Each structure stands twice: as structure tokens, then as C-alpha cells.
């Protein structure tokens, strides 16, 4: 068990390991770890660039079980293929399919986990050149291999189709 002082950030890697073990699983999740980190510089000022947005939030489906706000964990709301929706409309995206802190926050404000409206405002003010016509949804809870070999290349391809020159990624 971690013994971190209360002001330290939550040690999620260690805590998830302990949590799984306490529940009787002997194969805790193996979080990705890399020494080398790729880096691309922005090639132009952001005020002239086209920006993409990627989220792990899920499209609301009224036919599935409770998706909140405040819903308990709901694996039915998971998705396993990259999705894309137009950036011109305000989508109804929920986060009941992921393990967020349901005690201290309640998923009752889309803008708190999906910044499209804020990005649109920055675009109107000229801080961003333009937003891509679509944003993209990234599946969660997959094997690292599936993310690396399937989902990440799919998101890259869609961002390229959109002409994205940079991207904001928001995991829940």
C-alpha cells in the first residue's frame, strides 16, 4: 500500500496494483513505460494552425444503462472503435465507461472534460487558426498493443484527413 503524504499526487500506478491484488487478482494492469519520448515542434504560430481534438469520452446512448451524470461504472457504454463527430455541434458525451472519481466529482459539466466549447472560443478570438471539422474518440481499456497497432494509427489517419497540424488530447 502506498504511504504517500496527503499533498502528494495520487500514485495511480502503485495504487491500481495494490487494489487489484487486494481484490484477489494476481495480474495487475501493466502501465506503459518508455525511456525515449518522440517530439515534434509546432511548425507555425498556433494562430495560423489547424488544431484537432481527441477525447476518451463516449457518445451518449439512451438505449444503454445509466450513463450519468453521477452514474456508476457502466461497461455497456464502452466503445472499441475510433469514432468521429462534427466539431460544429455540441455533442452529448459521457464518461460513465471509465474509472473516474465518482465520490468527489460528478461528470455534470461537459466542458470540464471535453474542451470543444473553450477551443471554439479561442478560435473566435484568433488564438487558434482553425479547428478541424471533426473531433475523434479514442477507445480505452484496450491492450497496449491494440492501442498502438490499431487505434493510434486510425486517429493519425483521421487527423491527417482533417489537415490537423497539432492536437489536444484529453484523457478522462
Amino acid at each position: 500500500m502506498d504511504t504517500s503524504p496527503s499533498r502528494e499526487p495520487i500514485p495511480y500506478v502503485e495504487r491500481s496494483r495494490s487494489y487489484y491484488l487486494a481484490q484477489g487478482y494476481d495480474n495487475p494492469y501493466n502501465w506503459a513505460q518508455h525511456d525515449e519520448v518522440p517530439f515534434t515542434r509546432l511548425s507555425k504560430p498556433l494562430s495560423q494552425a489547424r488544431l484537432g481534438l481527441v477525447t476518451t469520452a463516449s457518445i451518449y446512448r439512451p438505449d444503454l444503462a445509466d450513463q450519468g451524470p453521477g452514474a456508476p461504472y457502466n461497461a455497456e457504454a464502452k466503445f472499441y472503435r475510433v469514432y468521429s463527430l462534427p466539431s460544429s455541434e455540441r455533442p452529448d458525451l459521457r464518461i460513465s465507461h471509465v474509472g473516474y472519481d465518482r465520490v468527489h466529482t460528478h461528470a455534470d459539466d461537459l466542458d470540464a472534460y471535453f474542451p470543444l466549447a473553450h477551443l471554439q472560443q479561442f478560435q473566435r478570438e484568433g488564438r487558434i487558426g482553425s479547428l478541424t471539422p471533426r473531433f475523434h474518440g479514442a477507445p480505452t481499456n484496450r491492450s497496449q498493443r491494440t492501442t498502438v497497432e490499431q487505434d493510434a494509427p486510425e486517429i493519425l489517419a483521421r487527423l491527417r484527413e482533417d489537415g490537423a497540424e497539432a492536437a489536444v488530447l484529453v484523457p478522462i
Partner: protein
Amino acid sequence: MSLVSRHLEENGIPTVIIGAARDIVERCGVARFVWSDFPLGNPCGRPGDKAMQRSIVGMALDLLESATAPRTTVQTPYEWSPDHSWKKDFWSLELSGEQLARQKVEFDRQKEIARQKRESEC
């Protein structure tokens, strides 16, 4: 999402992650990361606090332009609460055997739902 970020960077698209699980993101290793010491579920700022959200998203835009090397993490200046005891509750181990057993039943049930869904969608 950190793995997606790495793939985009490798292929010429600069990225910034806005998030809260600092050790998970930094262990994976990403180019740019705007981090708030918040509960998971509101990486862009406190629900209802549009000024804070705008500030955090703005910091991500700033970082896209200003970072000169990978693993650049910027911590936002916001505190979830002066009392940090919320950090003890998430994936808490301070549960009775009975509570843990109940959680495991629900966990296994959700895992099975996810498995069936994954098989039907893939």
C-alpha cells in the same frame, strides 16, 4: 491516450495532453502535458467553473507553442480543495473484506459486459 500522443508525435503531429493522472502519463512518456492535481473526471477544470477551465485549456495552447523538448509537464496553479483527503478515497484499500468482496463481484460483472461488447464490436 499517452500512447496515441506518442504515435502522433512520431508521425509529425505535435500534441498536448490535458490530464490528471500524472504518474501514468509521465511513466508512458509524452511530449507535452498540462497537469492538474484533481480527481479523475474533470481534466479541464472544476465543473461549472468556466474561467478555470478556460485558463487550463489556454495553458495547453501555450504549451503547444512554448515547449522545446519532450516530457514538458506544466502544473496548473489550481488546488481541488485545501483539504487533500480526497486523495485517500480513490481505489481505496481502506475497505472491509465484505466491501472488497462486493466490489469484486461488480468488477467481474462489468468486465464480462466489456468482454462481450468488445467481441461484438471488433
